[in-house]
């Protein structure tokens, strides 16, 4: 563990951008965990009298059309957005990595079936598939997570399958088999942990995509139910006010959204450096 940390520090010091990304990630986590405790106003409290006020000392990000403090809402929304991102990524990973390694390891019919499922999903225009799933099942957080996980599934399958294929005849796998481990044990206990670093890179990259997907769904009207604050919905609502000059309603959640996705993308790149020196930037 300490060797990994030392190695990580070595890579990070040569790559300030990745260090920045880690820092940003820490900030986001902090906001997600402690957001509701440190928010200056109740994110749901409406007050028509103070609607549409520009950023000021009292309201750092201004207020929206119902008088709610935007800074508080952006802060509290971090938890929801990160939850959606994490949950969908983990779900996609569980489904995708497991079926992917099985496909890559066993080959034959397993590979064909898993491959066909992944291909069918990929044949859809992905965003429209997500829209269709949420529209059909109802727009709540669970379904958004499920929809996002489904459209990310093929990516994980592909990477997991390729990696498992490569390792199928590797030495350590042979050794595990010879020691008497059943196939399932070899898969879960040896191959899967071995490809974890690469999967983590994937997870980080798709995290950003999951947040953008949720934002896009909100823009169309299939996002989380109001009045819960969520970055995408806030941008969608704020979009109606850009023309009339109330730019802060859309800008701050939009900037935060961008920052979060940016952070995850850079994080993914950075993790790749730590994990796989051949692809280091």
């Amino acid at each position, binding site marked *: 563990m300490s060797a990994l940390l030392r190695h990580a520090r070595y890579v990070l010091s040569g790559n300030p951008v990745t260090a920045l990304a880690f820092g940003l990630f820490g900030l986001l986590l902090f906001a997600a965990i402690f957001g509701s405790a440190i928010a200056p106003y109740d994110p749901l409290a409406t007050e028509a009298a103070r609607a549409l006020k520009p950023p000021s000392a009292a309201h750092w990000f201004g207020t929206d059309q119902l008088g709610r403090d935007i800074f508080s809402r952006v802060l509290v929304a971090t938890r929801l957005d990160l939850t959606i991102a994490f949950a969908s990524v983990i779900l996609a990973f569980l489904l995708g990595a497991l079926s992917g390694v099985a496909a890559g390891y066993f080959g034959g019919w397993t590979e064909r079936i898993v491959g*066909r499922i992944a291909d069918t999903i990929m044949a859809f225009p992905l965003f*429209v598939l997500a*829209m*269709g799933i949420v529209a059909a099942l109802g727009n709540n957080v669970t379904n958004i997570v499920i929809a996002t996980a489904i459209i990310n599934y093929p990516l994980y399958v592909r990477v997991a399958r390729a990696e498992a294929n490569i390792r199928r005849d590797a030495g350590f796998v042979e050794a595990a088999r010879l020691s008497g481990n059943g196939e399932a044990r070899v898969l879960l206990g040896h191959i899967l942990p071995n490809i974890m670093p690469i999967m983590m890179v994937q997870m980080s990259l798709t995290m950003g995509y999951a947040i*953008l997907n949720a934002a*896009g769904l909100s823009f169309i009207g299939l996002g989380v139910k109001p009045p819960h604050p969520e970055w995408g919905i806030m941008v969608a609502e704020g979009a109606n006010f850009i023309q009339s000059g109330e730019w802060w309603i859309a800008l701050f959640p*939009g900037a935060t959204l*961008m920052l979060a*996705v940016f952070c995850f993308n850079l994080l993914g*790149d950075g993790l790749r450096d730590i994990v796989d020196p051949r692809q280091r930037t």
Partner: protein
Amino acid sequence: MLNLLLSRLATAIPSVLGVIVVTFLLTRLLPGDPAAYFAGLAATPQAVAEIRAKLGLDKSLPEQFLVYVQDLLSGNLGTSLTTGQPVTADILTRLPASAELTLLALFLAAAIAIPLGVLAAVKQGSWIDHLCRIVTTAGVSLPVFFTGLLFAYVFYYLLQIAPAPTGRLDAFLTPPPHRTGFYLIDSLLVRNTEAFWGALAQLALPAASMAIFSLAPLARMTRGSMLSVLGGDFIRTARASGLAPRTVIFTYAFRNAVLPVITVLGMVFSFLLGANVLVETVFAWPGIGLYAVNALLTSDYAPVQGFVLTMAVLYITLNLAIDLLYGLVDPRVRLDA
């Protein structure tokens, strides 16, 4: 070659079937009742039931599926509730609009991302490399509808450089006669420069919004591919032989690095074709994405099914074409297959 084609087609058929079944199920799961919509204001429950029978919606799900497949085989994709037109006609008129926009966006993105990627690979670790990484990652981190809205606000409303976001062509210019459906090509074919520039001006903002979003995968892949090629022995030999750096990079390295980039181009194209839904909404672009979104939100089955099917077929055709292109360009692939 033929074997390659046939084997690819064989794997594609199950995907298409899967798409048909999943789309059918999804649209049937959509909330909302086209019968109630059709029956209109103040219809009594009996009137709605009559209309439901007329639309065939009272049959069981497997029966409806059979009817759907029969219609598909005769080329009938149904009729849209919102536009009142047959879906096939709607898609045929709207697909060129989306395709033109997507192709232009892709072209723009490639024109920026590929040189950037090459430069970042050649000058690895320098500030250009970091800048490339930051710029492209920033581009892909912004929600594309947000970029679009911002562009429209800044360039049309504030700076007045761009034309009104009212669709493919200004209201007072007549579109060129229909040949391909691509206004840029059609207007050049009849030498109508007014329409050409008008169409190009309208395309600028939406294409730019989409291009920004596509920079990252292209630049990343170019850079990665160039890096791995530049590390190869033959490059070392070329350099050692005293060839000029420019020759080394373009004649030797780039040509070999370009193959994965083509694959990524194909992937990005099909991704964009589905994801341009958001851009089309912002810019009132009469494309297939906007058509599908409106239909989805109004539980209008037929256009959604038609749209998804069209996209799936396009995607599979495109992948096939890329595989074949690969086979043409890279003999190793041909031999393996």
